[in-house]
């Protein structure tokens, strides 16, 4: 009897879930007010994204929230975007997820996250206008979350190698060349080991080979895609090691004589702080970046607390502290002013002034993100297979 009831519930849940994604244009689904808190909120987040002062007492943006709202924050850390997608798929235990642009559209398409009523988030208007309607969390004019944080993949370089001729193009990591210190760049450059890096190659080709007609480096047709892979195979000859872990790369800049590499401001900030001769630049071709969004789960068990957290996540103090902690750019520009941990130049150091030159991560889909017939663009799963082959020297 009991098992039959469970089965019935499961079937019902599936029907409801199916309807939820099918009739998502139904406006009446949206809550109209934030009710009483449910006592807790469960967030799937990147490591270090939700700090409660346990690592460093100065970095705490949870304790106050819990005291004010009575919503106890529980964090489930995820290591990769795909882990996040896996955790959120069909979940009934998580309320929120801090999804990056390479997973947010997958979460929306898979029906794992639901539309958010931005009327219920008073701080929405304080968000950087360029992020408010960003296409990695906005589909058909509907918002599926609140922007949380973003960072850029800048070009880091060794100032002793480049002297008074700092690089201004990604060519130093893609083409074999003699660097200002008189030695070749072969074996002295690095590249990111995630398949999304194919977009970095496409971005470079967009500037250097206009004939290919690349517009969006995340939506590549077969020819453009093959050209990007060709460039990456050429790069394989120059790259000693691909970087994956920020701290391993910091070590490689320090001990392996890496001259130039795509990197995050986080690494260059740490290296500069340690007195290493490393600086960073957004090259003329522009750069890719990642922007994370706090998204609301379709079956969130604590929706009221979730709305309260989304509002809380946009307050300037938290945004500034987070940017200082992670080397990122806040989603709320006001956070750049007067934050003790971030300092007066914190936002600029993390790259805020280069915002307009950044193309943020999106998941490549076979219908070019809804702009073309299915099969027009190369989907993400092929990016993975092929990039693995490139790193393997094929």
């Amino acid at each position, binding site marked *: 009897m009991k098992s039959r009831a469970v089965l019935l519930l499961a079937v019902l849940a599936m029907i409801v879930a199916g309807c939820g994604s099918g009739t998502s244009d139904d406006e009446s689904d949206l809550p109209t007010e934030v009710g009483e808190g449910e006592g807790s909120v469960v967030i799937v987040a990147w490591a270090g994204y939700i700090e409660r002062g346990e690592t460093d007492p100065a970095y705490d943006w949870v304790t106050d929230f819990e005291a004010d709202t009575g919503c106890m924050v529980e964090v489930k850390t995820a290591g990769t975007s*795909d882990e996040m997608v896996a955790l959120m798929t069909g979940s009934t235990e998580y309320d929120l997820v801090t999804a990056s642009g390479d997973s947010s559209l997958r979460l929306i398409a898979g029906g794992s996250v639901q539309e958010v009523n931005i009327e219920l988030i008073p701080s929405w208007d304080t968000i950087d206008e360029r992020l408010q309607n960003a296409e990695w969390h906005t589909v058909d004019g509907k918002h599926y979350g609140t922007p949380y944080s973003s960072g850029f993949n800048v070009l880091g370089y060794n100032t002793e190698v480049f002297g008074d001729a700092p690089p201004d193009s990604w060519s130093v990591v893609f083409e074999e060349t003699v660097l200002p210190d008189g030695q070749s760049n072969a*074996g002295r450059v690095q590249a990111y080991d995630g398949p999304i890096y194919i977009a970095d190659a496409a971005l470079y080709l967009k500037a250097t080979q206009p004939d290919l007609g690349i517009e969006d480096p995340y939506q590549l047709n077969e020819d453009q895609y093959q050209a990007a892979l060709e460039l990456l195979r050429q790069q394989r000859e120059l*790259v000693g090691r691909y970087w994956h872990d920020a701290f391993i790369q910091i070590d490689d800049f320090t001990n*392996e004589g890496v001259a130039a590499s795509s990197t995050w401001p986080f690494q260059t900030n740490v290296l500069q702080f340690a007195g290493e001769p490393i600086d960073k630049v957004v090259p003329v071709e522009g750069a890719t970046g990642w922007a994370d969004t706090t998204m609301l789960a379709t079956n969130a068990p604590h929706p009221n607390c979730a709305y309260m957290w989304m509002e809380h996540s946009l307050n300037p103090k938290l945004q500034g502290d987070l940017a200082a902690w992670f080397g990122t750019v806040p989603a709320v520009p006001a956070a750049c002013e007067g934050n003790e941990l971030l300092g007066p130049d914190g936002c600029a150091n993390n790259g805020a002034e280069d915002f307009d030159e950044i193309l943020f991560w999106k998941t490549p889909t076979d219908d070019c993100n809804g702009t073309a017939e299915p099969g027009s663009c190369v989907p993400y799963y*092929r990016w993975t297979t092929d990039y*693995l082959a490139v*790193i*393997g020297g094929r």
Partner: protein
Amino acid sequence: MTDASSRQPALHRISTYLHKRPRLRLLLLLALPVVWLVGVYGGSLVSLLLQSFFRLNPFSGVLERVISLDTWRTLFTAANNAVIMRTVGMATAVTVASVILAFPLAYYMARYAGPRVKAILVLAVLVPLWSSYLVRVYSWKLILAADGIINWFVERLGLEGALQALLGAPVIGGPSLSISLFGQFLVFVYIWLPYMILPIHASLERVPRSLLEASADLGARPAFTFRKVTWPMAIPGVAAGSIFTFSLTLGDYIIPTIIGDSSPFIGLAIYSYQGVAGNLPLAAAFSFIPIAVMAVYLTVVRRFGAFEAL
């Protein structure tokens, strides 16, 4: 009188009951390990095998639960074959090097070392296993780095030429030791060596001294005795150790991310097909490569009596 005596016969009856039924006894005894091995272990392997017959829709990349051979066909591309060859090649090289390094030490421990020295040596072999694997791999990254300890010594000794020649070699070379296949090989050997020393030591301990004396009495020179008596009796230990070093290298996916030139190994390929790409069928199919390699390997070493020395 009431409690103890009424329970005693009950226990007695159970034990008599079981005593008369040896099959039931065996079944009860083995129930837990069988559930574990067949259910948990075998079951997940079967589900893995089933997964590998699903496929990704070639356009959308969405998982289709349709039985097909498409995934297995995409497994044997040139790129994946290179991954397999690289991994098996490394596992073989690491195993051979481990035998060469481990044998003399194990021989010394079993034959010549006194009880005190032997205890110290066994401890020295085991102590590294007590510290975190990750800490040891990261330390090796620093040791092998371009600005690391080894390079410092090489410079002091004026051997830069030799090191450059090594790093200039095709395939195994690279910009520095820590970014070369050779450096990766060194770290693999370091990490797995204890698993080779211990079984060889155990098998050499079992060679009776009297056999060696008999061989000498019959006029055999030491080299001949080694070839005809010691080595054949040590082979099970070598084979057992090689199972460890070979399979551990075959499955490792941490060392290749930290040391070496980022060329993917089987474990890394599975990890990124499963994790990054969400291509579960291909990851599942790939998982059967090390299983197949190990099945062949175990069949071969079984002939050398490896299972007798485990």
